[in-house]
């Protein structure tokens, strides 16, 4: 791909970008959220038409007008948001558009056999007859990969493949990618995770804000810091030393909380927890140990079965989200699409989701959109949300900028208690650093911060105290300076309280 340029209206998403993929290599495409990585790949895959530049495959200039042409050229894409029909089986999804036939019907036996053959050749374990809605995210991704291989792809584009995977699934995926290379395929890996690049990539092309920065060999001369610097354009401090916490009075007091999940099973069972003003309490735990339900009952999304939630000494158990918000709780939800933003609303409207009914945003039952717009503009500026304008739908923003918008909204109200659930999921280092700084700032203002994350690195880095959650209970509280990943991991897996890890 040479000198690619792509514009959306007046916004230049790709400006003169060059990327050359060699046969049999894993080529990483690195850039921050919204730098234009996905746009570039959609151009290559024929979903977008470039305004300038040219694409060559095996030295021949090609016009990729639609995905069909990309498929014929042997280019396959594993989309970040899987392109799978949920009600179809695995096999149906793979053969869709290129179905083996016997007479007028689909030859399901041949289809199944072919799918299984490819699956075995590349070590992609799947259940060909399962419906997509019933299988794990990891398997869905393997189905996406199989779709491209079924069409004979030689060049595979992976668009942020690890964003939705668990650590084990990420390791499996890395093995799969190595296997694909061994079988003679070439891979473009779009990512902002430096660790993965160091682990698998042969070369790495960096883009920043739509512009080409450079291509480097990933070898001994390169490390995570230098890549991060290329990507962000300045030095990134991974291990920023934050000031010491100065905990004050108790802000949140959870007593004997019991919460049932949507299936009616008790997933939080008698949980006790205290958070003080001026501290960050990190909750470590493996997904599914009651994190979601704990957050939902503190933020008012779910009524607990029993137990108490006290905020600043006042009983707020089972109050509605609005009452909780007014009582002084801010919530950065784990699912930003579902609970964080109204995706089809503009950024402007999203900024006042909790405060729209108050002055100055509305007066005597009428909205004051001028005040809303001013607020939105101020927030966007202050929190560096990159958007063409405040009237753009939240859906159109990249994940990192969506998250920044939510954080802007929540932090700006400066609530007594800020719940941050996986605030950096799927984000790049620059954005992560920014978000951590915001959390610490809140703490320094004397607010309480509750951080829930599945990433131990993050918990250890930002928290002042770490509470380990296992099967709906807090099984231990540790000081991050004195504990280790091993000890936390042991507790998270259900190890006994006490010091048996010594």
């Amino acid at each position, binding site marked *: 791909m040479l000198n690619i340029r792509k514009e959306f209206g007046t916004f230049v998403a790709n400006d003169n970008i060059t990327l050359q993929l060699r046969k049999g290599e894993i080529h990483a495409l690195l850039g921050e959220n919204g730098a234009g990585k996905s746009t570039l790949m959609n151009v290559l895959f024929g979903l977008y038409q470039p305004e300038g530049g040219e694409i060559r495959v095996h030295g021949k200039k090609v016009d990729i007008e*639609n*995905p*069909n042409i990309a498929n014929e050229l042997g280019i396959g894409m594993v989309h970040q948001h899987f*392109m799978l*029909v949920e009600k179809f089986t695995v096999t149906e999804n793979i053969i869709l558009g290129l179905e083996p*036939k016997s007479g007028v019907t689909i030859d399901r036996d041949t289809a199944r056999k072919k799918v299984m053959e490819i699956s075995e050749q590349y070590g992609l374990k799947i259940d060909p007859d399962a419906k997509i809605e019933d299988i794990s995210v990891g398997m869905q991704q393997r189905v996406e990969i199989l779709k491209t291989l079924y069409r004979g792809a030689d060049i595979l584009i992976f668009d942020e493949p690890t964003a939705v995977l668990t650590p084990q699934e990420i390791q499996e995926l890395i093995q799969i990618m190595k296997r694909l290379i061994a079988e003679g395929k070439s891979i473009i890996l779009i990512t902002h995770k430096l660790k993965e690049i160091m682990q698998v990539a042969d070369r790495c092309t960096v883009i920043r804000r739509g512009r080409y920065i450079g291509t480097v060999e990933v070898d001994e001369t390169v490390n995570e810091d230098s890549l991060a610097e290329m990507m962000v354009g300045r030095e990134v401090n991974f291990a920023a030393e934050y000031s010491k916490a100065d905990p004050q009075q108790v802000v949140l007091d959870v007593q004997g909380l019991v919460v049932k999940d949507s299936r009616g099973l008790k997933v939080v069972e008698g949980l006790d927890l205290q958070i003080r003003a001026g501290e960050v309490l990190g909750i470590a735990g493996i997904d599914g140990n009651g994190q979601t339900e704990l957050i939902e009952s503190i933020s008012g999304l779910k009524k607990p079965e029993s137990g108490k939630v006290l905020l600043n000494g006042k009983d707020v158990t089972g109050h509605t989200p609005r009452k909780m918000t007014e009582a002084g709780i801010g919530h950065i939800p784990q699912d930003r699409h579902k609970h964080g933003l109204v995706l089809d609303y503009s950024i402007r409207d999203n900024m006042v989701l909790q405060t729209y009914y108050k002055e100055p945003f509305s007066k005597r039952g009428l909205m004051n959109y001028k005040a809303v717009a001013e607020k939105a503009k101020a927030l966007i500026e202050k929190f560096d949300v990159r958007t063409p304008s405040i009237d753009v739908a939240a859906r159109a923003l990249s994940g990192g900028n969506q998250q920044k918008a939510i954080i802007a909204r929540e932090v700006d109200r400066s609530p007594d208690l800020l719940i941050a659930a996986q605030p950096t999921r799927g984000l790049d280092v620059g954005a992560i650093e920014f978000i951590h700084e915001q959390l610490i700032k809140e703490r320094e203002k004397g607010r309480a911060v509750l951080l829930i994350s599945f990433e131990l690195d993050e918990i250890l880095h930002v928290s002042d105290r770490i509470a380990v959650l296992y099967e709906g209970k807090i099984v231990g509280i540790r000081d991050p300076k004195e504990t280790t990943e091993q000890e936390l991991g042991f507790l998270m897996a259900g190890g006994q309280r006490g010091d048996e890890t010594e």
Partner: protein
Amino acid sequence: MSFLEVLYIVVPVALAYATPLIIAALGGIFSERSGVVNIALEGIMIIGAATGIITTLTLTDLGAGVFSPWISLLVAMVVGALFSLFLAVPAILWRADQTVLGVAINMLAIGLAIFVVRVLYNKGQTDFIEYRIAKENVPFLSDIPVIKMFFINVQYTSFVAIALAFVVWFVIFKTPFGLRLRSVGEHPMAADTMGINVTKMRFMGVMLSGAFGGLAGAVYAVTVTTNFSGTTIVGQGFLAIAAMIFGKWNPLGALGAGLFFGFAQALSIIGSNLPVINNVPQLLLLIAPYALTILALAGLVGRADAPKSVGIPYIKGKR
């Protein structure tokens, strides 16, 4: 009158009323499975009914005799498919709101049909057709006790409808075309990335729906009413949509639902002649199909069964 004798009377009437419902519901399935809401089924049936009667009258004048209603059915299919372009073009190409569009088309259809009838015959309704698709007793089968209830006083179009349900089921679930049609109704972007032309598939879905809707209207006209006026088709299209939903967008489900609605309609029409049922106020029988529909839709069928992207125009490149 024994229970069996009651059935001998009710079942043929039920079949006659169920036939157009089944065919139209099958049409609805094609459209909605491709992702386009088809409220316009009512209007398409009106156009089909008008076409059926006008064509039969014309062909009879030309001397086509008993074949004229059968030929008119084919003509109505073609006209229905063409008329459905009023839905297809704005809904698919211009991304118009499909529900509003459907309502508008229904109004257009009744006005257009009456207008054409006035221009052709100088009056508000047509004459009655001479050759209708008549009720017959199927040889041999109508002599067998019990099962003869399905073969006495029956029109062959009923068998066509039932056969079509199986054909459509086969097409939707067993052929590549069906797989592609369903994929654009569920996740058009996924289909697009797999090289499937979403626009083309949706056009085919809507136009097939038009052909079936046209056929359904014509069948109703040439078997039941035998002339065309402004009140020939009043709600059958909507009932067919209900049958489609009731049948969970599955052709065989639509067949069952169509038969059920036909049965309810038959009871309301001839119930006063039947023992036991004649004690039920006729009002209740008349509203029964509609009340049952509301109950069925409220309680039995979840939204979850609808094609996921139905009613949502596909915009390339939207995140």
